[in-house]
């Protein structure tokens, strides 16, 4: 799928979900059916801490041509702060530390002689997310910005650089309540980072805690 098609699709999906959520946010509770209005009787501010793994789906042509495209799984920690409204809609902020790629190639033949090539690319996305309860699952989507840092070591020279890119996030969660405030669950999510056109699916175990309730 081309970059423009991907972005269009990502933007469209996010927008549809957000639009649907906004209709719920700004709707009068009385207009919602009884199931919806009973679902969240209180407001809450919750913190979710997740820990899991992520991987990169799509390497670029350049990396493939040099065989830097092996599947790696990296540790994925993430943090989410959610405002749980008394409607179906929850709004929050999500952040994570993503290792996008990491490579080490030894004795690379180049025009300038033999060298090792080491590289690491990481991202720190911060996303505004919109979360919706569907049956027992939470489906969320969001968008934001990601700080991306890339590090290369070759020819005995370290080079690092960084950019800010746009990002989209989609996720599906399932939680079990352990106490009134504490819950634990599983989460599957997909990050899409725009400027570098990368898809990063991840799977996590999450713990959620309602810090404030009113």
């Amino acid at each position: 799928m081309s970059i423009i098609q991907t972005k269009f699709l990502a933007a469209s999906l996010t927008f549809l979900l957000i639009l649907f959520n906004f209709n719920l946010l700004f709707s009068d509770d009385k207009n919602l059916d009884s199931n919806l209005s009973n679902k969240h009787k209180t407001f809450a501010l919750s913190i979710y801490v997740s820990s899991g793994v992520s991987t990169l789906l799509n390497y670029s042509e350049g990396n493939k041509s040099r065989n830097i495209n092996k599947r790696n799984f990296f540790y994925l920690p993430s943090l989410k702060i959610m405002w749980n409204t008394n409607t179906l809609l929850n709004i929050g902020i999500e952040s994570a530390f993503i290792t996008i790629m990491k490579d080490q190639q030894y004795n690379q033949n180049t025009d300038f002689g033999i060298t090792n090539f080491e590289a690491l690319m990481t991202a720190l996305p911060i996303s505004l997310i919109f979360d919706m309860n569907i049956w027992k699952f939470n489906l969320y989507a969001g968008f934001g910005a990601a700080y991306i840092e890339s590090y290369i070591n070759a020819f005995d020279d370290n080079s690092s650089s960084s950019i800010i890119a746009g990002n989209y996030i989609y996720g599906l969660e399932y939680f079990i309540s352990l106490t009134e405030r504490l819950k634990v669950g599983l989460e599957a999510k997909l990050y899409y980072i725009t400027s570098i056109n990368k898809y990063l699916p991840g799977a996590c175990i999450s713990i959620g805690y309602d810090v404030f309730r009113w």
Partner: protein
Amino acid sequence: MKHFIINSIIFLLLLQSCEIDITNVTIPQNRINDTLEGTLPIKDYIKANINGKYKLSEGKEHFGDVIFLKWNGRYLTAFCKKNASFIVLEGGIRDSAIILVGYWRFSQGSDNGFVKLSIEKDNGARELIAGLKPRTLTISGEFETDATQKINLTYNDTLKSLDFLIIAHRGGGRNIDRHPASENTIEMLNYVERLGANGVELDVRITKDNIPVLFHDEYLNKRLIREDYFIGKVSDYTYQQLRAFCTLKRGEKIPALKDALQFIIYNTNLEFVWLDIKETGSVKQIAEIQKQYSDLAKSLGRKIEIFLGIADINIFNEFINLENYRDYPSICELDEDYVIKANSSFWGPRWSLGFLRERVTELQKLGKKALVWTLDEPQFIKNFLDKSYFNGILTNYPTVVAYEYYSN
């Protein structure tokens, strides 16, 4: 409030979606080679007699009523009016007929197709091969769109000599215009004369280890490169790292300025190079290379001029701090006072300032010349050629400027 938030989100989402992916035009080189297999090369005296203005009796719906044919080395380019199209052909002689084969394409968009033409011996080939100017010269054949269509051209007039600068932007052509090579590469420099250009603008940036290289954007990005790890500025990486591990969109390497100038001098007939200095702090290194390769060209008797581009006040201040700065040939994009202070050979105002007839004339009286940039719209190109006194045009569409110049 609700609408404001929703509209803000729509805006942000659209902003994130603004990136274009390009589909390349594929040149049917295998078919060209197969068709020309076993043919004899076309001598220069034959080529000189083929150059000219031609009228179309067939194919005019696609290319227009009139086209201009001009050889450059082994390639014959047809500059057309309609759809800003052009045809690039290679040729050979077989059985007393001249075979011309290649491809057509629109300057904008990805439409293209195979073209096979010939000059039969009774349509002028016999005289051409004998070194004579034929009384009638007809080129006929077919070109492919969705279907195969006929094309027929008849020689109408000579081609006027090119005493105007047609300068191709971004090292010969932008990626977005679907050329067979990436912008600012040796491969694009090898191609650019087929587009009718006699000059080229090169975008110059500096690597971490102070090597001037050709690269347009401030950041390495997916529009221009293939690799994942290279995301920062050109100046974040060493030249060796870029050359060894970073490839451009069509698979080329980022060239050093020195390599590009050497290629231009030895392998092309380009007469004009505009070095567009993209960042401050690099004028001295670039000026040294400019001098080195200008001297080389002079020693070879090669007719070419290499100019430093002064695009803003910071570059200007750095330029006038060079020792003997008045001796470095330059193009100044700032106002005339700066042109005179820098002793620039050329003034380069942007096209949107208009024809600037009086201001250009005043500078020309002082022995200076003027170029306008970056002019792409066919009607504006025609207007500037008709109504202004500029000595050249910097453009992304040299084929359009060439057509308008030859028809002017």
